């Protein structure tokens, strides 16, 4: 049992570090932070990763993945986090990608996989509805067969970045008989189709990430259905598994903790450094220990998969603990910013408040309240673990 790197892994670490330093420039980081340039800058960044062959690193090698070991994947995400660089927007490469190569037909794979990998398609996720949140199978958006098309009517909600999306992967009801899970199909929908309306939902961080997407007699070719009709729940559940492991957020937690430590070393309190305050140290330590245990929980899961085993039931804990950790980090960040975190952005607010990070701390805390809700709320996660993990 050891956590050491081989010489080859150290070379890889150096390669990733140099790439991140050279390619993730301050200028690009600034454009990604700004809502007006976010989409374009994010695609630019993802295309750089793709050019290096790393964008879809978790995919099978025959589809352009890297075939990395658990160690290499952990080196990659660590170096990315330390450089402050964002990972790819997950909906395409991390969520629908695996569904496409696992369940898509040859034509669908050829049409969508290369374009998804190259970030030429921006995907959004059509799962939740006003009446179907944690109880996802209660979804009502109807798809009625009409020749070679389905005609879609209904509403999806909480759709992250739908305003930027070219395509949506969407769960629709194709049968109202029997168990709710039995009548669901998985469709790929072109967001430029007539009848689609995207309406913004402003979240408590005052930003526009979320949307409501309504469908009024939208025609979708049957050829855009993944797998069999009424079997969509199977594919959707597989996707949720990919989504949950992608949601542990270890890299984000480590990067933000590093920022908190740096800021706390410069922050003054009663004339001394905040980082020297024993109470602050104790709070920081509590969160850092939680994040280290999350990191090793994830490494244990990855390592088990590397050794040819299936991830055990500890993998189901990753989303649950990961979201708890993200919120713990964000709460600490907010506490660090103290009253300056409450200053709303203005033209010169940074000079007024004296704290460049107060605004960021507030936004991340506010947006982070969603982490224990999306991808299946943590209460639902506990139900799932109780049933399938503990056999209750």
């Amino acid at each position, binding site marked *: *049992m*050891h*956590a*050491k*790197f081989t010489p080859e892994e150290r070379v890889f670490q150096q390669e990733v570090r140099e790439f991140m330093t050279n390619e993730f420039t301050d200028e690009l980081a600034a454009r990604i932070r700004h809502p007006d340039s976010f989409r374009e800058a994010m695609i630019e960044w993802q295309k750089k990763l793709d050019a290096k062959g790393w964008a879809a690193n978790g995919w099978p090698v025959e589809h352009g993945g890297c075939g990395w070991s*658990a*160690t290499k994947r*952990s080196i990659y995400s660590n170096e990315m986090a330390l450089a402050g660089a964002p990972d790819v927007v997950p909906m395409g490469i991390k969520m629908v990608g695996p569904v496409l190569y696992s369940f898509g037909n040859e034509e669908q794979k050829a049409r969508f996989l290369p374009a998804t990998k190259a970030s030429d398609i921006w995907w959004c996720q059509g799962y939740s509805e006003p009446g179907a949140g944690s109880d996802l199978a209660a979804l009502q958006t109807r798809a009625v067969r009409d020749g070679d098309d389905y005609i879609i009517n209904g509403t999806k909600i909480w759709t992250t970045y739908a305003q930027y999306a070219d395509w949506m992967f969407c769960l629709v009801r194709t049968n109202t008989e029997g168990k709710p899970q039995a009548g669901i199909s998985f469709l790929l929908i072109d967001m430029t189709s007539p009848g689609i309306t995207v309406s913004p939902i402003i979240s408590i961080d005052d930003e526009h990430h979320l949307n409501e997407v309504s469908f009024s007699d939208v025609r979708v070719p049957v050829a855009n259905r993944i797998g069999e009709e009424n079997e969509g729940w199977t594919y959707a559940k597989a996707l949720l598994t990919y989504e949950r492991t992608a949601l542990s957020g270890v890299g984000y937690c480590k990067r933000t903790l590093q920022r908190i*430590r740096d800021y706390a070393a410069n922050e003054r309190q009663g004339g001394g*450094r905040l*980082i*020297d305050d*024993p109470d602050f*140290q*104790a709070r*920081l*330590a*509590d969160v*850092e*220990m*939680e994040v*280290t*245990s*999350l*990191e*090793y*929980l994830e*490494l*244990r899961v990855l*390592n*088990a998969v590397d*050794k040819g085993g299936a991830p055990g039931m*500890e993998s189901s*804990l990753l989303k*649950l*603990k990961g979201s708890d950790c993200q919120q713990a980090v964000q709460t600490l960040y907010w506490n660090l910013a103290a009253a300056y975190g409450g200053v709303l952005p203005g033209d010169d607010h940074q000079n007024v408040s004296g704290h460049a990070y107060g605004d960021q701390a507030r936004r991340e805390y506010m947006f982070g309240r969603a982490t224990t809700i999306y991808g299946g709320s943590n*209460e639902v996660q*506990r*139900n799932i*673990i*109780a049933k399938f*993990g*503990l*056999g*209750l």
Partner: protein
Amino acid sequence: MDFSLSEEQQLLKDSLEKFVASEYSPTQREKLLHAPAAFSADHWQTFAELGWLSIPFSEEQGGIGGGIVESAIVMEAFGRGLVLEPFVDTVLLCGQVLARSGNASMAEQYLEPLIAGELQGALAWQERQSRSSLEHCETEAKRQDGGWLLNGEKVLVSNAAANLLIVSAKQGDQVGLFAVPADNPGVTLQTLKLMDGRDAMNVTLTDCQLTAEHCLQEAGLQLLQQVVDEATVALCAEAVGAMDYLYQATVEYSKTRKQFGQPIGKFQALQHRMVDMFMLTEQCRSLLVCALCSVSDNSETVTEDISALKAMVGRYGRQVAEEAVQLHGGMGVTHEMNIGHYLKRLMMIDVTFGDADFHRRRYCNARYAA
């Protein structure tokens, strides 16, 4: 990076689990609590015959050259069954100080009987004023007639069956380590019963005379800290084994205990609490893996990794045990049910070698110092 066990390690784990399953039912354990020194001398001989006592010693010293991972495998299995035999005290504390001190004559004299199961050991480090600090030592060692004279008092020394004590004592401005036979006329022992069923003792040293060779190291603080750190990891492995048992036993109990016409495990309020017990256990196991790698790799962050583990095990070990008692209801507070015994052991592990607060402070000092 590789967290898997080797074939030999897996075999060791299997044989330990087999021993615990066949020899450590709650009834069998209850009998041992009333044995002299509160453990089984027969089991100890079995350990010797199976080679378990030789695990962490080098081949030159008569061992099999195991490391921290093997020690953790032993202690995790022992934790599941609340095994009472003093493996940590004799093998990992006393034995490892002897093996690493560089004092060949003492190692030669004592390691062979220790590995053969004929010698019990203890580490006498704690004093009334030191609480959890290894370096704060008022027991004094003075040179006399080419040898040493020790005076002072050590408290809460684990393993009352010890024939050999490793004693830390101040000499000048350093902390020396001494091998003190328990039958030295300058040694007075007073046995104490502990809540986890074990026997400890207070040790008074009154003009305790030792020959020069009984000084293991004149400046031994670093060795002491290293051996205690590794034993701390092993204790945490024991705790993880106990936590693993507790959440599983609680889940099983909730499937059979019926109230309001159904198994209590069907109630969501209880299901979520059991999921949290499982999560806390896996978190502690994850930091155990981190600390095992850190010690094996001789990592720069070994101090903070061990203290993070001990701090988390201290808090979450007790939390999981308290939840187990609660979910077992009235049965959970009976002496008859073994759940409460796990709580007591996890409470004692928390306060051994520094509790959760002590180790969080040590983590902060290692990580955030200017």
